[in-house]
């Protein structure tokens, strides 16, 4: 009887995971007559990749490389689908055979040439210096004793470090373009060094900066293919790039994204908080819906998984309790972000099968939050007086009936407050899934800010949305607790 009962639970779990797979975001599948390639690209790298508010490249002005690929595919007659990930993940996925080519403002380096066949380069990206538009600094020499802002890990940062002693300036490191540029525009830092197209794009979008030097340390940018593989695709891409360069299409595309100045949409009236909310309402609500979907599906699966773990954890069978405590130990001990990377980026290589983003997110939540729920459920059952078991069993009730009729109702009452708390934590934890590119509320925020550069106001708006949702959830859960108690 007891096994029968457990099997039922496990079966419903399997059905739910299947449901999650179906719910997962599916990329459109093209007709099979022309070859379809999977191209890995980055989640944002302006102006090469500019995601729309929903984190995809479907809209107008999706960036230099995206538009270039569109034109080449049309010219060369092949189909492709984009797989969006972090820059580092494109390199791993390329080697793992998950993608046919990678693209993301990638510099051609000797180190990378060992494992990657590069296409022809279509752009030389060099480092330039920019200052506030009202600054009178014009040359490196004027930086003596001043502070310079750079983004860590970029070629701008490497260049700045190499000349810092010579010109006598100090370096301040930033994580995002937006905060770094604001620091320069506000006059806190005297100048910044960054890739020319990146800076030009920022200026074009309203950042009050001015480029004052010529590009140095230029490095060619190209697409990559796993060494020795997919030579047909390599050939098509090279052919397409040559065609674009000869016909002037490439230059036109580059100018479109790096020349000129701010568009009209960036006037001050569009940058107030109400205007920002209004302009991004669609994206924000889509992000919120995704967050809620993840929370509800994830928390539900976590509850089912956690109950299975908890029930196994109090079983008389030592093997079951061992499995339960091991799983809880592993998934509770592993940072959720590592688990998310493992499932989304690591697992496909192991099972030879791609995992849709939403599914990967939900599985991550199920395992991580489920481990916590498992510990709560086990604790709740353990907290029921031993005498309750003895009384039920001595009446002749089998284990499963004693569990369901006597122990569970009492255990659940004990665990409800902790479960409710875990549910709220699950909602907050969905933001961690932004790391693998799930377009939930936090990732939506990141994408919006990369376009409008309004970090302070946008994070304020998003923070308030989280607080409001969690407040509503807390009210709801207090109501539920009163009902149960």
């Amino acid at each position, binding site marked *: 009887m007891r096994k029968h009962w457990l099997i039922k639970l496990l079966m419903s779990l399997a059905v739910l995971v299947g449901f999650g797979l179906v719910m997962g975001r599916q990329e459109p599948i093209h007709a099979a007559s022309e070859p379809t390639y999977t191209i890995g690209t980055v989640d944002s790298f302006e102006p090469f990749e500019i995601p729309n508010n929903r984190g995809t490249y479907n809209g107008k002005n999706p960036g230099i490389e995206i538009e270039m690929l569109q034109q080449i595919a049309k010219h060369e007659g092949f189909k492709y689908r984009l797989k969006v990930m972090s820059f580092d993940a494109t390199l791993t996925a390329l080697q793992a055979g998950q993608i046919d080519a990678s693209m993301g403002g990638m510099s051609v380096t000797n180190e990378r040439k060992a494992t990657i066949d590069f296409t022809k380069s279509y752009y030389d990206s060099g480092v330039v210096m920019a200052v506030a538009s009202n600054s009178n600094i014009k040359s490196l020499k004027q930086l003596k004793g001043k502070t310079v802002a750079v983004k860590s890990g970029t070629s701008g940062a490497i260049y700045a470090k190499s000349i810092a002693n010579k010109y006598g300036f100090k370096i301040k490191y930033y994580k995002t373009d937006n905060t770094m540029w604001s620091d320069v525009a506000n006059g806190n830092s005297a100048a910044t060094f960054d890739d020319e197209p990146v800076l030009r794009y920022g200026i074009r979008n309203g950042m009050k900066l001015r480029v004052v030097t010529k590009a140095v340390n230029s490095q060619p940018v190209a697409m990559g293919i796993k060494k020795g593989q997919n030579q047909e695709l390599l050939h098509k891409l090279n052919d397409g790039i040559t065609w674009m360069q000869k016909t002037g299409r490439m230059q036109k595309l580059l100018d479109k994204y790096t020349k000129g100045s701010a568009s009209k949409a960036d006037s001050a009236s569009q940058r107030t908080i109400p205007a920002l909310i209004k302009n991004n309402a669609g994206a924000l609500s889509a992000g919120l819906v995704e967050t809620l979907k993840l929370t509800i599906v994830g928390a539900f699966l976590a509850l089912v998984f956690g109950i299975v773990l908890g029930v196994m954890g109090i079983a008389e069978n030592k093997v079951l309790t061992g499995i339960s405590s091991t799983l809880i130990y592993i998934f509770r001990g592993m940072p959720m972000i590592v688990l998310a990377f493992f499932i989304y980026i690591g697992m496909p290589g192991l099972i030879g099968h791609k995992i849709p983003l939403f599914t990967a997110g939900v599985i991550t939540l199920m395992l991580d939050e489920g481990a916590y729920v498992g510990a709560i459920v086990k604790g709740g059952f353990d907290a029921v*007086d031993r*005498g*309750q078991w*003895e*009384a*039920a*069993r*001595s*009446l*002749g*009730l*089998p284990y499963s*009936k004693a569990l369901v*009729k*006597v122990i569970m*109702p*009492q255990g659940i*009452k004990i665990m409800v407050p902790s479960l409710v708390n875990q549910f709220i934590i699950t909602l907050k934890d969905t933001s961690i899934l932004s790391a693998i590119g799930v377009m939930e509320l936090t990732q939506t925020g990141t994408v919006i800010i990369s376009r409008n550069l309004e970090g302070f106001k946008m994070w304020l708006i998003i923070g308030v949305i989280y607080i409001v949702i969690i407040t509503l959830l807390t009210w709801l859960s207090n109501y539920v607790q009163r009902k149960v108690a």
Partner: protein
Amino acid sequence: MDKQYKIQVKDLHKSYGDNEVLKGINLNVKPNEVVCMIGPSGSGKSTFLRCLNRLEETNSGHVYIDGYDIADKKTNIDLVRQNIGMVFQHFNLFPNMSVAENIMLAPVQLKKMTKDEARKAALHYLDIVGLKEKADVNPTTLSGGQKQRVAIARALAMKPDVMLFDEPTSALDPEMVGDVLEVMQTLAKQGMTMVVVTHEMGFAKRVADRVVFFHDGVIREQGKPDEIFDHPQHEDTKSFLDKVLNV
């Protein structure tokens, strides 16, 4: 194994780690017999009682109930337990159910009774223990004596042949003890086979067919109540009775 006995225990040993708490117990209980087990705390009498329905696993020896060896893995212990009622020191009523539901649970789940039949039966047993009017209250609102009487009714509802009582009055206020003992005495008169671990010497004297004195994990002495209480043979028995009777 002898068919004439309801309960037959042969050379039962039980240890917790290195601590042997039962050191070879032999005991037979005939149908309709009332056996009271007395002895100092830690003498092993409660542990022994719990071995009779396998709430405790034994290390060696045999326990036969109606001829079934309950230590045998092939024996369906749940079926055997349906025939053995047990009453605990701390009542162990289910707080998530009403008084009547406590009593109805096992008959509905195990005897395939409908809820109506089970409720009727529950009211009947509540009547026997004098608590019919408490059928629909939550057990947590009852006094200790009332709880224990409900627990007895719950055990009786499965119509067991044997009732085990594990210090049923030890957790009660003195004025509650009488009601519970009265119910137990009625059961004994009606011919229920009973094994009772108790500190109520008066009850043992009055109701028991046989008194068993436990000491240090063995049965030191057993016999009819007057033999044990009036003419104890063993020094340990004398010293125990001196302590409990002359307070």
